[in-house]
């Protein structure tokens, strides 16, 4: 019976401890900087256009082929009287969040630091009624960064803490 008593005492000791419940939908725990939700595109606030040039690097590297990228000539390029140094720029971009497996490879292969994993709660709470709604277009992908609502973390492969 000693063991049963010990077991009862164990539960009694947890009874007196503070509950560990996180009141999830009401209280969101702070997410770490590196948190990985779904990828989104970043907005170059200085020139007011996306960083993405539509180079297809991420599309090719994606293991699950969830991206579709189309590029166009940049109408804002210097040669045509604009302010941008980007000759090509993203025209259309779709990411199927339903298929994305959040492996971070697209971020690593991007040469322009134009794509990042969403590290805010908006990136996690994506439930929709129809799978179709998880295919996000360019506007949707850029919206959060354009509004400045994200402090992105773009990891560099093999980067150390020096």
């Amino acid at each position, binding site marked *: 019976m000693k063991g049963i008593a010990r077991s009862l005492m164990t539960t009694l000791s947890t009874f007196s401890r503070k509950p560990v419940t996180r009141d999830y939908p009401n209280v969101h725990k702070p997410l770490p900087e590196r948190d990985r939700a779904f990828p989104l595109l970043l907005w170059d606030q200085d020139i007011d256009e996306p960083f993405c040039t539509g180079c297809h690097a991420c599309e090719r590297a994606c*293991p699950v082929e969830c991206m579709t990228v189309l590029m166009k000539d940049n109408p804002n390029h210097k040669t045509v009287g604009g302010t941008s140094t980007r000759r090509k720029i993203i025209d259309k971009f779709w990411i199927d969040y339903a298929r994305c497996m959040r492996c971070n490879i697209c971020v690593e292969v991007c040469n322009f630091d134009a794509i990042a994993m969403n*590290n805010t709660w908006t990136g996690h709470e994506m439930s929709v009624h129809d799978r179709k709604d998880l295919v996000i277009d360019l506007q949707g992908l850029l919206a959060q960064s354009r509004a400045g609502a994200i402090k992105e973390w773009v990891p560099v492969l093999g980067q150390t803490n020096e």
Partner: protein
Amino acid sequence: MVTERAREFDTQDLLINVGPQHPSTHGVFRMVLEVDGELVKDVIPYIGYLHRGAEKLCETMDYRQGIGFMDRTEYLAAFNAELSYVMAVEELAGLEVPERAQWIRMILCELNRLSSHFMFLGAFGVDTGVMGTPFIYGWREREMLIDLFEEISGDRMMYAYFRPGGLAWDVTRNFKERVREVIKSSAQGIKDFDGLFTENEIFVARTKGIGYISAEDAIDYGMSGPSIRASGVPLDVRRDEPYLKYSEVDFQVVTGQHGDVFDRYACRLQEMRESIKIIEQCLDKMADTGPIMPEKMPRMLRTPPGEVYMRTEAPRGEYGIYLVSNGGNRPYRLKVRSACLSNLQALKQMSVGLYVADAILVLGSIDIVLSEVDR
């Protein structure tokens, strides 16, 4: 006598279908129990409900892309699964992993072992019939560990953090303090489980002496991990064929003596204490800064033709990756040697002749993860 009676009353054995949606099958495992009253006469396991063809998929992906799929074959101990995979690639490509990266890998794998075993303790406790308490204890501690993994790798379960050659990026700056904090909380969790179960008479009466498998049988079935060590076979890849820095740390290979359900439980509990010891040693020996990837990494990793069978000790046993390369940037053939699959084969031998309730415990004590069994 019995057969005569059976003829007289025309009795027949009852077939009970346990799973794939039964609460105690830990996923989508299905077994058909042939019972006579409450006694199990035969067990017919069915697996494959979670087969996603990870091996075939990896043949079409380059080495980096495959990492994400390895996570998904072993979702409770994804670091360990990744480790086998990236080490197989490193072994083939002849990559030298920086020392610091090895220490970090080791710490993360041992932490993952802790989190996986907490999950086992919780689920197994619920199998024995405690209303939810062990499960919440397990989740509580696992949550701490997972939060740490999230801080480091960015994801809670599918880390995709190890890369051929090292690590994707460095750990957080307060890594050591955070790990110390977390293992302190884990030690408390182990204490809680110890208090809840180890001496509890009912638990002892339920688990001791059932689900027996002898050392010879366990070896014959190819069991591994705590399931075989409980039978008294000190089979541990970490010590027999040390990888990473396991030869430089001091730890015990925990073995049981009886090969029953209780020993499998006790082995895991003790193994968690050993894991904490390993982590503490790693923290002491690990450098604070240093490279985590080799100096020169090719943009697209190619391996020379050849093959390697890389084995590591995952929480559930030997997680092996058989990687065959034909010189390209992707595996020619990838075989995942699943510890659970081999452990599960012995289920029938362990459960026949027991009560239905015991058969559930035996299944729980093997600690299966169906994504690893089915891949």
